[in-house]
């Protein structure tokens, strides 16, 4: 700060400077036309690349965009018979992995969320699928700021615009497409037959487990109430509920275990404990909670097979849905 008011002249070259001799009116507008041409060429060319050479993003460097990929994928497409709802742990279970086992799913596992938001979004989409698979690992966490962000985004004009224009969807973001490519190169993609011969622990709780809400924290009590409310919605719509616990290196603890047993008893629904797979094979993680791509593919296959078996009338002895 200087009373003489000296001003640096550096940095004066930025494009927003206007000189008195610059053209105005129509002549100045014409100067902007090449910019629009470059934009249209890039946009069109990129859409072409996405349909031919590149694949749409299935992962994003940005947690909110990652959720948006799932939400748009779920709400823009025709609804399928099975929905997966849960947190970022299950967001790694791509619908493509389930397709490989012939179980088409609507994936609504969302970053920093429990299953309740996914169920709410399904309900807003007018039809709840016949089977809803509910991840329990983060079910006791109440809503986060992310939830409002997702709801605002779903209500926005941009979200409506992206429905007819795939180029505006989260899966088309150049940075996410690049990130997906790099991530798949780093982690590998696993094999199509991963999970063959592996079986999770599947059970239904028939006797009242005597769940004591006092074992939960205030936040967990709020989270559990929210989940029960959402599940009542699912049940009222006549859908079948399946609970599952994903491998997470011990993130889900005694509270989640007690909670899922109580839910199983309350709704008469089977519990698929995928942590059992850790005894049968080695799973890889990108951090302490989330599976890497090959392991996520493997676990998805096992879950798909199990859901398929449950739907076929209970070959696992749980009575099915």
């Amino acid at each position: 700060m200087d009373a003489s008011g000296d001003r640096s002249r550096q940095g004066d070259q930025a494009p927003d400077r206007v000189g008195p001799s610059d053209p105005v009116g129509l002549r100045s507008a014409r100067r902007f036309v090449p910019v629009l041409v470059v934009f249209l060429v890039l946009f069109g060319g990129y859409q072409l690349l996405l349909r031919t050479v590149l694949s749409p993003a299935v992962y994003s460097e940005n947690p909110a965009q990652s959720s948006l990929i799932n939400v748009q994928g779920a709400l823009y497409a025709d609804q399928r018979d099975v929905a997966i709802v849960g947190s970022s742990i299950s967001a790694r279970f791509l619908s493509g992995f389930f397709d490989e086992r012939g179980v088409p799913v609507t994936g609504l596992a969302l970053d920093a969320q429990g299953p309740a938001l996914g169920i709410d979004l399904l309900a807003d989409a007018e039809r709840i699928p016949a089977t809803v698979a509910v991840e329990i690992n983060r079910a006791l966490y109440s809503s986060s700021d992310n939830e409002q962000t997702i709801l605002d985004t779903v209500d926005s004009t941009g979200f409506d615009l992206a429905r007819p224009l795939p180029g505006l969807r989260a899966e088309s973001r150049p940075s996410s497409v690049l990130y997906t490519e790099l991530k798949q190169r780093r982690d590998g993609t696993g094999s199509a037959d991963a999970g063959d011969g592996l079986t999770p622990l599947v059970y239904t709780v028939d006797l009242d487990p005597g769940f004591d809400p006092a074992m939960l924290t205030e936040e967990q009590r709020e989270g559990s109430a929210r989940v029960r409310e959402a599940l009542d919605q699912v049940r009222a719509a006549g859908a079948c509920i399946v609970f599952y616990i994903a491998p997470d290196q011990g993130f889900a603890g005694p509270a989640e275990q007690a909670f899922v047993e109580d839910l199983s008893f309350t709704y008469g629904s089977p519990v698929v404990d995928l942590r059992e797979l850790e005894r049968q094979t080695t799973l890889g993680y990108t951090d302490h909670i989330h599976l890497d791509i090959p392991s996520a593919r493997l676990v998805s296959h096992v879950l798909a097979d199990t859901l398929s078996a449950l739907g076929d009338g209970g070959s696992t002895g749980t009575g099915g849905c």
Partner: protein
Amino acid sequence: MLFTSFAFVGLVLVCLGLYYVAPRVLAEPEDRPRLRTVQTSLLVLTSFVFYAFNRPVLALLLLFSVLMNAVVAWLLVSARTSEVFKTRALAVGIVANLAVLACFKYAALFAEFLLPSALEGDVLPALRGIPLPIGISFYTFQGISLLVDVRRDTSGVAGQLRTLAAGSDGGEVRRRVRFLTEVALYISFFPQLIAGPIVRASQFLHQIRPRRASEVNWNAAGTALVGGYFLKMVVADNLAEHTALLVVDDFSRYTRVDLLLLVYGYSAQIFADFAGYSLMAIGLGRLFGYELPRNFRTPYNSTSITEFWQRWHISLSSWLREYLYIPLGGNRRGPRRTYVNLMIVMVLGGLWHGAEWNFAGWGLAHGLFLATERAVAGGRYGKPELVSNVARIPRIAVTFTVVSLLWLFFVTPDFGASAAFFSRLATAPLGLGQLGDGLSTGRLFAIVVFISPVLVHHVVSLLQDHRPRVPALGPAVRLGWPRIQTVALGVMLFLIATNHGVTGEFIYFEF
């Protein structure tokens, strides 16, 4: 209403259409005073709709500010008012402006000092519950600028308003209405109402005149708008997802590289957020024929803190210099008084951002750096042309790191959190070979990718500034620049459409 919302785009398009078409219907083409009034009124109406869109009650506060400043300005230019009365009117006007700011922004802070502790329990929560009207710090400063510029007659402002107040065209009522509308436009002009640039009366009032679409530089407006929307929607909104860790996370699992990346990420974000807003404001102003002052000059190319303040939030730093530092005596009363003045200005400048001790601490730290630089090298730190090319890059790196670390006071919730960050930075492992343990690879990828446009912008500017010293680069850059600019703007537009983040509020809306 956010600049990035579809509602805002709709409002601007409607206003723009009416601005250039309606006057042809409502006023004869040669009736320039009427055309001026119609266009000015339309902009004022749009500004109030914009400001009150989410909370209509805010319109009352803006209206009060406009009316109060208009009445005082009228008194200041009136021939019937004595000089003594004018001086008193000016004092009352400034105090009234500051009182509004104090009431809505600093009441709780004052109460902490002034109230007996017995009353604090009842009063403080109520005072802390007073919602901060957005933009209040900006339009209050503009109100003060209006009154002072009119009293000083800076750039003939007083004469211009006097002509409006006492001109020969139209009756008394019409003149008063026109005076009020033009003051209202200056205070409330929607492109810069919420977060600046802080425009001085002497920079704005002389621009009010009838406008036609054929006089507008649409290319310059479009260029500024594309640049602004790109910085905000692509750079700042994408970085915000990751730098939010500075607010909510504990720092124990991060390495030094992680921590520095988060801080550099926030530096790029706050620049992109605020410079983006300023560019949008400039672009929007141009759509209506108004040129708003530039607010940033590649601030992270600064070789000292002194130079940083010549390049960052220029409209605030020049306002503080003009209306606070110089009236306090500036550098004319000896070195000690200069240092004291610098500290006063920077601490108050910090508090201008928010009634929290964090902001005062941020201002104090900057004040200390400014005073130290002045003590060590006099005014030389404010003259980058004296820095050799060899010394330039390391000095830019050091200044950028210091500025970035000081932003922590902005983003962390309190001093304790800032201290925890610095403590971890001092003790954490360096992080080479450990990347990914703390920050996920996705976050690292995002921070590096979205910092890069800010980096490129600064590097290009640096190269352009020193073009004469790199002869081989000169002609190439000169010949290629328009084409590079066209392609760059096209790419920015493409990324705005396809790669924007989740829209968030502007950081400076909180101030």
